[in-house]
């Protein structure tokens, strides 16, 4: 009789351990999921071997006063006129295609 009761207790004990182990294995891991860092989506940009880095933003043109702008245009016209006069005096391909020194277009 004693042996039967001991066997019964041992069976219940094993059954309880198995049930506890099963419950632990199938419990949702909410806390672990919350701790995961959020993955950022990778932008689908076309990769180029010569320019992988993002382009720097273009500088915003500074709005100069209209008088200054007109003076810049006048200086440009004067410089271009001088270059054209040099070409007319001694016409050559080099003088015609010489790069302008005017800062207005450089």
């Amino acid at each position, binding site marked *: 009789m004693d042996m039967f009761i001991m066997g019964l207790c041992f069976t219940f004990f094993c059954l309880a351990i198995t049930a506890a182990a099963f419950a632990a294995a199938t419990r949702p891991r909410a806390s672990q999921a919350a701790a995961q860092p959020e993955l950022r989506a990778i932008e689908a940009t076309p990769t180029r071997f010569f320019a992988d880095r993002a382009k720097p933003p273009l500088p915003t043109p500074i709005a100069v006063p*209209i008088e200054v*702008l*007109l003076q810049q*245009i*006048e200086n440009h*016209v*004067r410089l*271009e*006129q001088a*270059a*054209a*006069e040099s*070409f*007319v005096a001694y016409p050559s391909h080099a003088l*015609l*295609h010489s790069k*302008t020194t005017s800062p207005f*277009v450089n």
Partner: protein
Amino acid sequence: MVYTLLQGLSPAETDEVLALGSRIAVPSGGSLFRLGESADRLFLIERGRIRLSFPMLVRNKEEEVFFQEMAPGETVGWSAMVPPYRFTLSATAPLETELIALSPETFLAFFDRAPEVGRKISLNLAILVGQRLQLVQAMWMREMQRVVELKSGQRAEAH
């Protein structure tokens, strides 16, 4: 004073031509003529300066943009001798300026009386017009070259 339009004329001939005109004064900042107006006179600059300009849209506003500055002895307003007899630029005086104004009718009547003087002046006028044409042509070609370089990216590749 040596006037480009009267080069090659004797002093007596020069005086005779100048006597056909009338002296006018334009105050500093004053207008001599405006683009589109009827060109009824041409002018020889006696003293001061004449600034030629044309209208350009700058920041959506029409502004007079510098084209050329003329000095004493030079001629302005030769549109009076060339059809359709309308000024193609505007002219102002950046400082007090004196000019001799000549009407084309008086000029041409004088040419009939003195054809040899008329021939010399016509040749000088052709030189003035030709020089302007060459200058503007050279400026236009340089500008076109720049536009082509800009559009084809040649300038970018060079750097």
